[in-house]
């Protein structure tokens, strides 16, 4: 079973991404959106080895470079991901 974790808070002011990484399974993926896109600057995200997606427009709005360990998706891609994974866990 796989879960897509959606994180929309910056990891530098909030513990959501840390907690998500703590309980993330090997089949899971993380989608960064909103200020969550600043997670691209968080080394912990890379070292964990979990699949990382970022919403392209939130990344572009913040002028964040796309690292080689992450993939960017548009909104249709976001919808497709939510279908591809067994469930979506949004860290509200």
């Amino acid at each position, binding site marked *: *079973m796989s*879960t897509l974790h959606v994180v929309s808070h910056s990891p530098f002011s909030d*513990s959501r991404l840390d*907690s998500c990484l*703590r*309980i993330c*399974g090997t089949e899971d993926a993380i989608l960064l959106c909103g200020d969550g896109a600043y997670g691209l600057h968080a080394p912990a995200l890379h070292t964990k080895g979990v699949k990382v997606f970022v919403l392209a427009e939130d990344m572009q709005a913040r002028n964040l470079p796309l690292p080689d360990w992450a993939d960017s998706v548009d909104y249709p891609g976001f919808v497709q991901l939510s279908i591809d994974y067994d469930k979506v*866990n949004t860290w*509200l």
Partner: protein
Amino acid sequence: MSKSLLVISRQAPWSGPSAREALDIVLAGGAFDLPIGLLFMDDGVFQLAPHQNAKAVQQKDLSANLQALGLFGIDDVFVCRHSMAVRGLTPPTEAQPLSNEAISELIDRYDQVITL
């Protein structure tokens, strides 16, 4: 068969409506006999601390809602062991402590998950 639901409650009881709303979702699900689980993690573990005094801040107590879990048939109540440990708390008897790996497996077992 109804879809199973895991509610992850990760806000302190005094930080806004999230803690109460998470409990309300669980109790409503229990009233409809949904297969439902409740996990306390991060600051949500503070909801389980004993002898809190809601009156001191003119708020309603969550402890009555917590005690109602059993009455509503909610037996699958879990608490993140890591979150308890970093806050210097010992796991209460009413919730089963889980390691990070066990939480990952717990999420796998449910059809849907809501994190508040």
